[in-house]
Protein backbone atom coordinates (compact mmCIF):
# COMPACT_ATOMS: atom_id res chain seq x y z
CA UNK A 1 0.00 0.00 0.00
CA UNK A 2 2.81 2.37 0.93
CA UNK A 3 4.47 1.47 -2.36
CA UNK A 4 1.30 2.35 -4.30
CA UNK A 5 0.82 5.69 -2.51
CA UNK A 6 4.52 6.60 -2.62
CA UNK A 7 4.54 6.24 -6.39
CA UNK A 8 1.18 7.97 -6.99
CA UNK A 9 2.77 10.76 -9.06
CA UNK A 10 4.53 8.23 -11.27
CA UNK A 11 1.40 6.15 -11.93
CA UNK A 12 -0.49 9.26 -13.03
CA UNK A 13 2.48 10.34 -15.15
CA UNK A 14 2.43 7.01 -17.00
CA UNK A 15 -1.33 7.37 -17.54
CA UNK A 16 -0.98 10.90 -18.95
CA UNK A 17 1.98 9.88 -21.08
CA UNK A 18 0.07 6.99 -22.62
CA UNK A 19 -2.97 9.23 -23.12
CA UNK A 20 -0.85 11.66 -25.13
CA UNK A 21 0.77 8.80 -27.04
CA UNK A 22 -2.66 7.34 -27.87
CA UNK A 23 -3.87 10.71 -29.19
CA UNK A 24 -0.74 10.97 -31.35
CA UNK A 25 -1.07 7.55 -32.97
CA UNK A 26 -4.85 7.16 -33.20
CA UNK A 27 -6.24 10.60 -34.17
CA UNK A 28 -6.18 11.90 -37.71
CA UNK A 29 -6.62 15.69 -37.34
CA UNK A 30 -3.06 17.03 -37.26
CA UNK A 31 -3.69 19.84 -34.76
CA UNK A 32 -5.11 17.26 -32.37
CA UNK A 33 -2.01 15.14 -32.86
CA UNK A 34 0.10 18.16 -31.83
CA UNK A 35 -2.10 18.66 -28.75
CA UNK A 36 -1.48 15.00 -27.89
CA UNK A 37 2.24 15.54 -28.32
CA UNK A 38 2.16 18.47 -25.90
CA UNK A 39 0.21 16.37 -23.36
CA UNK A 40 2.97 13.76 -23.67
CA UNK A 41 5.67 16.39 -23.20
CA UNK A 42 3.98 17.92 -20.15
CA UNK A 43 3.74 14.49 -18.54
CA UNK A 44 7.51 14.13 -18.94
CA UNK A 45 7.94 17.52 -17.25
CA UNK A 46 5.78 16.36 -14.33
CA UNK A 47 7.87 13.19 -14.06
CA UNK A 48 11.14 15.12 -13.82
CA UNK A 49 9.84 17.67 -11.33
CA UNK A 50 8.42 14.82 -9.20
CA UNK A 51 11.88 13.24 -9.11
CA UNK A 52 13.41 16.49 -7.81
CA UNK A 53 10.91 17.10 -5.01
CA UNK A 54 11.95 16.50 -1.41
CA UNK A 55 9.14 16.10 1.10
CA UNK A 56 9.22 19.07 3.52
CA UNK A 57 11.69 20.89 1.28
CA UNK A 58 11.35 24.35 -0.19
CA UNK A 59 12.02 25.94 -3.57
CA UNK A 60 15.77 26.17 -4.33
CA UNK A 61 16.05 29.91 -3.63
CA UNK A 62 18.61 30.42 -0.89
CA UNK A 63 17.39 31.83 2.41
CA UNK A 64 19.22 32.63 5.66
CA UNK A 65 19.32 29.81 8.14
CA UNK A 66 19.06 26.07 7.68
CA UNK A 67 16.64 24.80 5.06
CA UNK A 68 16.07 21.73 2.91
CA UNK A 69 16.01 22.64 -0.78
CA UNK A 70 14.39 20.56 -3.47
CA UNK A 71 16.61 19.61 -6.38
CA UNK A 72 17.28 22.59 -8.70
CA UNK A 73 18.74 20.50 -11.54
CA UNK A 74 15.43 18.99 -12.64
CA UNK A 75 13.96 22.49 -12.82
CA UNK A 76 16.83 23.64 -15.00
CA UNK A 77 16.44 20.70 -17.38
CA UNK A 78 12.70 21.19 -17.66
CA UNK A 79 12.98 24.94 -18.26
CA UNK A 80 15.06 24.12 -21.32
CA UNK A 81 12.63 21.37 -22.35
CA UNK A 82 9.58 23.66 -22.11
CA UNK A 83 11.17 26.23 -24.39
CA UNK A 84 12.19 23.55 -26.88
CA UNK A 85 8.66 22.11 -26.79
CA UNK A 86 7.15 25.42 -27.86
CA UNK A 87 9.67 25.53 -30.71
CA UNK A 88 8.58 22.07 -31.93
CA UNK A 89 4.90 22.99 -31.56
CA UNK A 90 5.34 26.18 -33.56
CA UNK A 91 7.21 24.38 -36.34
CA UNK A 92 4.61 21.59 -36.35
CA UNK A 93 1.76 24.08 -36.65
CA UNK A 94 3.52 25.88 -39.50
CA UNK A 95 3.83 22.50 -41.29
CA UNK A 96 0.13 21.84 -40.66
CA UNK A 97 -0.81 25.19 -42.21
CA UNK A 98 1.41 24.42 -45.20
CA UNK A 99 -0.10 20.91 -45.60
CA UNK A 100 -3.57 22.43 -45.45
CA UNK A 101 -2.58 24.71 -48.29
CA UNK A 102 -1.24 21.87 -50.45
CA UNK A 103 -4.07 19.36 -49.86
CA UNK A 104 -7.00 21.46 -48.65
CA UNK A 105 -7.33 19.26 -45.56
CA UNK A 106 -5.32 18.33 -42.48
CA UNK A 107 -6.96 14.95 -41.96
CA UNK A 108 -4.43 12.15 -42.41
CA UNK A 109 -6.94 9.72 -43.92
CA UNK A 110 -8.15 12.25 -46.48
CA UNK A 111 -4.57 13.06 -47.42
CA UNK A 112 -3.94 9.32 -47.85
CA UNK A 113 -6.96 9.08 -50.13
CA UNK A 114 -5.82 12.06 -52.21
CA UNK A 115 -2.34 10.56 -52.55
CA UNK A 116 -3.73 7.20 -53.65
CA UNK A 117 -6.04 8.86 -56.18
CA UNK A 118 -3.07 10.81 -57.57
CA UNK A 119 -1.01 7.66 -57.90
CA UNK A 120 -3.83 5.85 -59.66
CA UNK A 121 -4.24 8.78 -62.07
CA UNK A 122 -0.51 8.72 -62.87
CA UNK A 123 -0.61 4.96 -63.53
CA UNK A 124 -3.63 5.34 -65.77
CA UNK A 125 -1.99 8.12 -67.78
CA UNK A 126 0.85 5.75 -68.65
Amino acid sequence: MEFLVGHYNYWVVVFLMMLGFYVVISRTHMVKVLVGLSVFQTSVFIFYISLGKIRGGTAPILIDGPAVYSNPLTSVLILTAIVVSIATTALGLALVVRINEAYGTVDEEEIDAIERADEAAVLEAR
Partner: protein
Amino acid sequence: MTEFVDVALLALLAVTGLALLKLRNLFAVVILSGIYSLLSAGLFVTMDAPDVAFTESAVGLGVSTVLMLGALALVGHEEKKPTRPRVLPLAVVILTGAILLYGMADVPPFGDPNNPIHQHVTPRYLEEMPEEIEVPNVVSAVLASYRSYDTMGETTVIFAAGVGVLLLLAGRRRRGQDEEEPGE
Protein backbone atom coordinates in the same frame (compact mmCIF):
# COMPACT_ATOMS: atom_id res chain seq x y z
CA MET B 1 -2.25 19.56 2.79
CA THR B 2 0.41 19.64 0.05
CA GLU B 3 -0.22 15.93 -0.54
CA PHE B 4 -3.94 16.61 -0.94
CA VAL B 5 -3.31 19.39 -3.49
CA ASP B 6 -0.89 17.10 -5.31
CA VAL B 7 -3.40 14.24 -5.51
CA ALA B 8 -6.25 16.56 -6.52
CA LEU B 9 -4.27 18.32 -9.26
CA LEU B 10 -3.03 15.04 -10.74
CA ALA B 11 -6.59 13.67 -10.75
CA LEU B 12 -7.81 16.83 -12.49
CA LEU B 13 -5.01 16.45 -15.04
CA ALA B 14 -6.15 12.91 -15.79
CA VAL B 15 -9.78 14.05 -16.21
CA THR B 16 -8.75 16.94 -18.47
CA GLY B 17 -6.67 14.55 -20.54
CA LEU B 18 -9.59 12.15 -21.01
CA ALA B 19 -11.94 15.00 -22.02
CA LEU B 20 -9.31 16.16 -24.49
CA LEU B 21 -9.19 12.68 -26.02
CA LYS B 22 -12.98 12.43 -26.37
CA LEU B 23 -13.90 15.88 -27.72
CA ARG B 24 -14.15 16.41 -31.47
CA ASN B 25 -14.40 20.21 -31.52
CA LEU B 26 -10.77 21.28 -31.80
CA PHE B 27 -11.36 24.72 -30.27
CA ALA B 28 -12.51 23.00 -27.08
CA VAL B 29 -9.53 20.64 -27.27
CA VAL B 30 -7.05 23.52 -27.54
CA ILE B 31 -8.64 25.38 -24.61
CA LEU B 32 -8.54 22.13 -22.60
CA SER B 33 -4.85 21.77 -23.40
CA GLY B 34 -4.41 25.31 -21.99
CA ILE B 35 -6.22 24.21 -18.83
CA TYR B 36 -3.98 21.14 -18.74
CA SER B 37 -0.90 23.41 -18.82
CA LEU B 38 -2.33 25.63 -16.07
CA LEU B 39 -3.01 22.62 -13.84
CA SER B 40 0.48 21.30 -14.39
CA ALA B 41 1.89 24.77 -13.55
CA GLY B 42 0.00 24.59 -10.24
CA LEU B 43 1.46 21.16 -9.68
CA PHE B 44 4.98 22.51 -10.30
CA VAL B 45 4.43 25.13 -7.59
CA THR B 46 3.49 22.45 -5.05
CA MET B 47 6.59 20.52 -6.10
CA ASP B 48 8.95 23.45 -5.34
CA ALA B 49 9.65 24.44 -8.94
CA PRO B 50 8.25 28.00 -9.24
CA ASP B 51 10.52 28.85 -12.19
CA VAL B 52 9.13 25.95 -14.16
CA ALA B 53 5.60 26.98 -13.20
CA PHE B 54 6.16 30.50 -14.52
CA THR B 55 7.56 29.22 -17.78
CA GLU B 56 4.85 26.59 -18.21
CA SER B 57 2.04 29.09 -17.63
CA ALA B 58 3.60 31.66 -19.96
CA VAL B 59 4.64 29.25 -22.70
CA GLY B 60 2.32 26.25 -22.37
CA LEU B 61 -0.81 28.17 -21.43
CA GLY B 62 -0.14 31.44 -23.24
CA VAL B 63 1.97 31.13 -26.35
CA SER B 64 1.13 27.60 -27.45
CA THR B 65 -2.64 28.12 -26.98
CA VAL B 66 -2.49 31.30 -29.07
CA LEU B 67 -0.44 29.53 -31.78
CA MET B 68 -2.84 26.57 -31.89
CA LEU B 69 -5.91 28.82 -32.07
CA GLY B 70 -4.25 30.73 -34.90
CA ALA B 71 -3.54 27.51 -36.77
CA LEU B 72 -7.11 26.28 -36.20
CA ALA B 73 -8.50 29.50 -37.66
CA LEU B 74 -6.61 28.62 -40.86
CA VAL B 75 -7.24 24.86 -41.11
CA GLY B 76 -10.73 24.32 -39.66
CA HIS B 77 -11.69 22.88 -36.30
CA GLU B 78 -13.92 19.85 -36.82
CA GLU B 79 -12.31 16.46 -36.31
CA LYS B 80 -13.85 13.72 -38.46
CA LYS B 81 -14.70 10.31 -37.12
CA PRO B 82 -11.82 8.00 -38.06
CA THR B 83 -12.77 5.07 -40.24
CA ARG B 84 -9.72 2.94 -39.42
CA PRO B 85 -10.08 0.51 -36.54
CA ARG B 86 -8.17 1.65 -33.46
CA VAL B 87 -7.27 -1.73 -32.03
CA LEU B 88 -3.60 -1.57 -33.01
CA PRO B 89 -2.88 1.87 -31.46
CA LEU B 90 -4.67 0.81 -28.28
CA ALA B 91 -2.63 -2.40 -28.09
CA VAL B 92 0.63 -0.50 -28.64
CA VAL B 93 -0.30 2.03 -25.95
CA ILE B 94 -1.30 -0.62 -23.41
CA LEU B 95 1.89 -2.59 -24.03
CA THR B 96 4.10 0.51 -23.73
CA GLY B 97 2.20 1.61 -20.62
CA ALA B 98 2.69 -1.80 -19.00
CA ILE B 99 6.43 -1.67 -19.66
CA LEU B 100 6.62 1.88 -18.26
CA LEU B 101 4.67 0.88 -15.14
CA TYR B 102 7.04 -2.02 -14.64
CA GLY B 103 9.98 0.39 -14.94
CA MET B 104 8.38 3.00 -12.68
CA ALA B 105 8.17 0.44 -9.88
CA ASP B 106 11.96 0.70 -9.60
CA VAL B 107 11.94 4.51 -9.27
CA PRO B 108 12.77 5.51 -5.67
CA PRO B 109 9.75 6.68 -3.62
CA PHE B 110 8.46 10.22 -4.17
CA GLY B 111 9.95 12.96 -1.97
CA ASP B 112 12.55 10.90 -0.12
CA PRO B 113 15.64 13.06 0.66
CA ASN B 114 17.89 9.97 0.36
CA ASN B 115 17.06 9.38 -3.29
CA PRO B 116 20.17 9.00 -5.47
CA ILE B 117 19.26 12.08 -7.51
CA HIS B 118 19.90 14.32 -4.48
CA GLN B 119 23.30 12.83 -3.57
CA HIS B 120 25.48 13.89 -6.47
CA VAL B 121 26.24 17.28 -8.13
CA THR B 122 23.29 19.08 -6.47
CA PRO B 123 24.91 19.40 -3.00
CA ARG B 124 27.96 20.90 -4.66
CA TYR B 125 25.84 23.56 -6.39
CA LEU B 126 23.91 24.32 -3.20
CA GLU B 127 27.05 24.66 -1.08
CA GLU B 128 29.42 26.51 -3.40
CA MET B 129 26.94 28.67 -5.28
CA PRO B 130 26.53 31.55 -2.77
CA GLU B 131 30.25 32.36 -3.05
CA GLU B 132 30.64 31.63 -6.75
CA ILE B 133 27.61 33.27 -8.32
CA GLU B 134 26.03 35.45 -5.63
CA VAL B 135 22.48 35.00 -6.90
CA PRO B 136 19.97 33.57 -4.41
CA ASN B 137 18.01 31.60 -7.03
CA VAL B 138 19.91 28.35 -7.65
CA VAL B 139 17.89 27.52 -10.78
CA SER B 140 18.82 30.81 -12.46
CA ALA B 141 22.44 30.41 -11.39
CA VAL B 142 22.73 26.93 -12.93
CA LEU B 143 20.77 27.88 -16.03
CA ALA B 144 22.55 31.13 -16.85
CA SER B 145 25.99 30.57 -15.38
CA TYR B 146 27.11 26.98 -14.76
CA ARG B 147 25.25 25.57 -17.77
CA SER B 148 25.03 28.68 -19.92
CA TYR B 149 26.32 26.82 -22.97
CA ASP B 150 23.23 24.62 -22.79
CA THR B 151 21.09 27.73 -22.73
CA MET B 152 22.95 29.05 -25.77
CA GLY B 153 22.25 25.74 -27.53
CA GLU B 154 18.61 26.13 -26.60
CA THR B 155 18.61 29.60 -28.19
CA THR B 156 19.97 28.00 -31.36
CA VAL B 157 17.05 25.56 -31.37
CA ILE B 158 14.58 28.43 -31.01
CA PHE B 159 16.32 30.33 -33.79
CA ALA B 160 16.23 27.30 -36.10
CA ALA B 161 12.54 26.77 -35.35
CA GLY B 162 11.82 30.45 -35.97
CA VAL B 163 13.60 30.38 -39.31
CA GLY B 164 11.72 27.19 -40.22
CA VAL B 165 8.35 28.74 -39.40
CA LEU B 166 9.19 31.88 -41.35
CA LEU B 167 10.30 29.88 -44.40
CA LEU B 168 7.17 27.73 -44.34
CA LEU B 169 4.78 30.64 -43.92
CA ALA B 170 6.58 33.23 -46.09
CA GLY B 171 5.97 31.04 -49.14
CA ARG B 172 2.32 31.00 -48.20
CA ARG B 173 1.97 34.78 -48.54
CA ARG B 174 3.76 34.82 -51.91
CA ARG B 175 1.70 32.01 -53.35
CA GLY B 176 -1.45 33.67 -52.07
CA GLN B 177 -0.60 36.78 -54.09
CA ASP B 178 0.22 34.75 -57.21
CA GLU B 179 -3.11 33.04 -57.07
CA GLU B 180 -4.98 36.25 -56.59
CA GLU B 181 -3.31 38.15 -59.41
CA PRO B 182 -4.64 36.19 -62.43
CA GLY B 183 -8.19 36.65 -61.16
CA GLU B 184 -7.92 40.40 -60.96
